[in-house]
């Protein structure tokens, strides 16, 4: 690992260690059937750190590997390569059921698709109550129920008692999404992996949930990995913004810094595409069709090179690594310019 890890460097001491850290996290999927050996590189060499009480927003193109990262962190997928450290302890070393339960209790996940993430055969309270039963063994049955009611109300579903008694098919997509969120809140976790938790909500309700995230972070110290397409909402809640493209993290930095001063051309393109009624239309992206790349058996080189307006020769042969280009702000691009004060750091 070279210079590029921007946040405080990892330490083995669990107190000073970041809440969660990944090193060279990689996940490939086999595609095609039978004897096909083609590999889809969903996530490649990802180093990601989430601090305590931090909201990290993860944005990027559809299919760039955001959900895959969340699923890796939640233990749904096993990494092809690399390692995840939770409070300094490697996930792969947690083998006993107790360790695993403890981790699952601390790090729940909100799934992206609310239509498939609730079991249609059970009332929506099922998942919440099960979580409580597994992770809050101190509670009695009725306490669990009260607790469930509390979190359902917290995500803005009222009357909570009635909603909890419904079956998923009786709820709208937005309502289901909030149930998923409530489920993650239920047992006082340390880090919530929220995979596009507000995508189906109307703007108005969306804001309520974003405010809830901020509030939770403030009052209970919960960290978030907030995956979203909606950069504006990321700006609204997140401390740090991480941009992915085709399995790589291409840029990462404090939210305001990234928005104000994007280093990677893809970030530029992405920001330009975000519609904003308050801002005039920018004609930045003429000609780009927005087609995501296929990351099947990639060759070295920048994965954005075909769409990049600034492409140089180097981009075709060398995969760029992340460099520090500003205050806590780094990007993986051969041509990106560092902030004035950061040249020395960027030099290799």
């Amino acid at each position: 690992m070279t210079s590029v890890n921007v946040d405080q460097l990892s330490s083995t001491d669990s107190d000073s260690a970041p809440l969660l850290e990944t090193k060279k996290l990689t996940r490939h999927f086999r595609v095609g059937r039978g004897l096909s050996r083609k590999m889809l590189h969903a996530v490649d060499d990802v180093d990601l750190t989430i601090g305590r009480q931090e909201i990290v927003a993860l944005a990027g193109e559809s299919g760039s590997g955001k959900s895959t990262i969340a699923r890796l962190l939640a233990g749904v997928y096993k990494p092809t390569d690399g390692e995840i450290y939770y409070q300094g302890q490697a996930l792969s070393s947690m083998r006993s059921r107790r360790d695993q339960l403890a981790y699952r209790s601390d790090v729940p996940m909100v799934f992206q698709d609310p239509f498939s993430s609730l079991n249609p055969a059970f009332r929506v309270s099922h998942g919440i109550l099960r979580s409580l039963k597994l992770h809050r063994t101190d509670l009695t049955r009725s306490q669990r129920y009260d607790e469930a009611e509390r979190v359902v109300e917290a995500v803005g579903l009222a009357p909570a008692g009635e909603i909890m008694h419904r079956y998923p098919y009786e709820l709208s997509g937005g309502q289901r999404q909030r149930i998923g969120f409530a489920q993650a809140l239920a047992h006082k976790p340390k880090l919530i992996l929220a995979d596009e938790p507000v995508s189906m909500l109307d703007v108005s309700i969306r804001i309520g949930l974003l405010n809830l995230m901020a509030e939770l972070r403030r009052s209970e110290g919960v960290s978030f990995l907030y995956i979203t397409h909606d950069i504006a909402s990321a700006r609204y809640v997140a401390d740090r913004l991480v941009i992915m493209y085709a399995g790589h993290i291409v840029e990462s930095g404090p939210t305001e810094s990234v928005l104000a001063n994007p280093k990677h051309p893809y970030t530029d393109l992405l920001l330009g595409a975000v519609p904003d009624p308050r801002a005039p239309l920018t004609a930045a992206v003429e000609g780009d069709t927005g087609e995501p790349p296929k990351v099947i058996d990639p060759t070295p080189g920048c994965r954005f090179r075909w769409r990049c307006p600034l492409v140089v020769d180097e981009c075709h042969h060398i995969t760029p690594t992340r460099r520090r280009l500003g205050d806590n702000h780094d990007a993986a691009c051969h041509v990106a310019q560092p902030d004035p004060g950061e040249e020395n750091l960027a030099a290799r």
Partner: protein
Amino acid sequence: MPKPILEVRDLTVEYDTGDRPVVAVDAVDLDVHAGEFVGVVGESGCGKSTLLFAIAQLLSSPAAITGGSVRFQGQNLVAMSETKLAALRWRDFSVVMQSAMNALNPVKSIGGQFKDAIMAHDEPVTDDRPAEVLRLVGIDPIHLKSYPHQLSGGMRQRAMIAMALLFTPDLIIMDEPTSALDVVAQRSLMVQIKDLQQKLGFAVVFVTHDMSLVSHFSDRLVVMYAGQVVELGATRAVFDNPAHPYSKGLLDAFPSIRGPKVPLTGIPGSPPNLAHPPSGCRFHPRCPVAFEDCPKIEPELYQVGSVQARCLLHAPGQTHAADPIREATS
């Protein structure tokens, strides 16, 4: 101003659910002029798609038009026979559906689906017209041989739009054509649509629940709430000075990537159940500025400056309050 090509009057659509009918579109009036880009926004479930399908006469049971008329180029589509409609469809107005994955027949090639449309009409189009329109939306005509599942989401949407352009109709109705796409792809597609519209001069009715999306592209904006049009006017005018508390709420709930970071509040409460809509003003249970008349009197669309809004605050002779925002905080 010339006569509009599409005049929707008093259009009402009900879903038959067994017990109480759901009135998904409630007495909607709407004019669309030639070459105009009309955006229809509103939260999900407020009846936008239903309205579009009602205009295109594409509703199928349990939905049915129970009142009103849809005049297209002077003819009432509601009363028209299916055969006559079939002749009109696609040639004069076409439809782009919400999700191209489902709207394209998965077992037919793109070219085959073009051919079906051509065979259904005796339009004098040349054989390479499909290739031409595909190129127009930026797809290699080689994909005429492809099947839908072989194309990416963006390409499918483009192919749909290309198909809609086949006979260069006067009106294209689009139902959230970009909601399944990535922001970048969405943006690129919107730019292209706008471009084509300006080039070819067709009118567009464009449905979405993404306020920000229409802000850049539409000429006129229709805001729907619970099956009703609650605000109607030039896009800029609505955005600059929303007259209905719901429109205002929508705009206020919008974080922005530019400008100062301000705390935002959403609209409390949840969308109404259309089978049992609230009495009076349908927005009143969630309205920050509701007053005692709201649950009792059903508002109409009142003229407010250059826009129309369905809010009792703007009813002629209303003295209740002059400034809604102030009212909310007092």
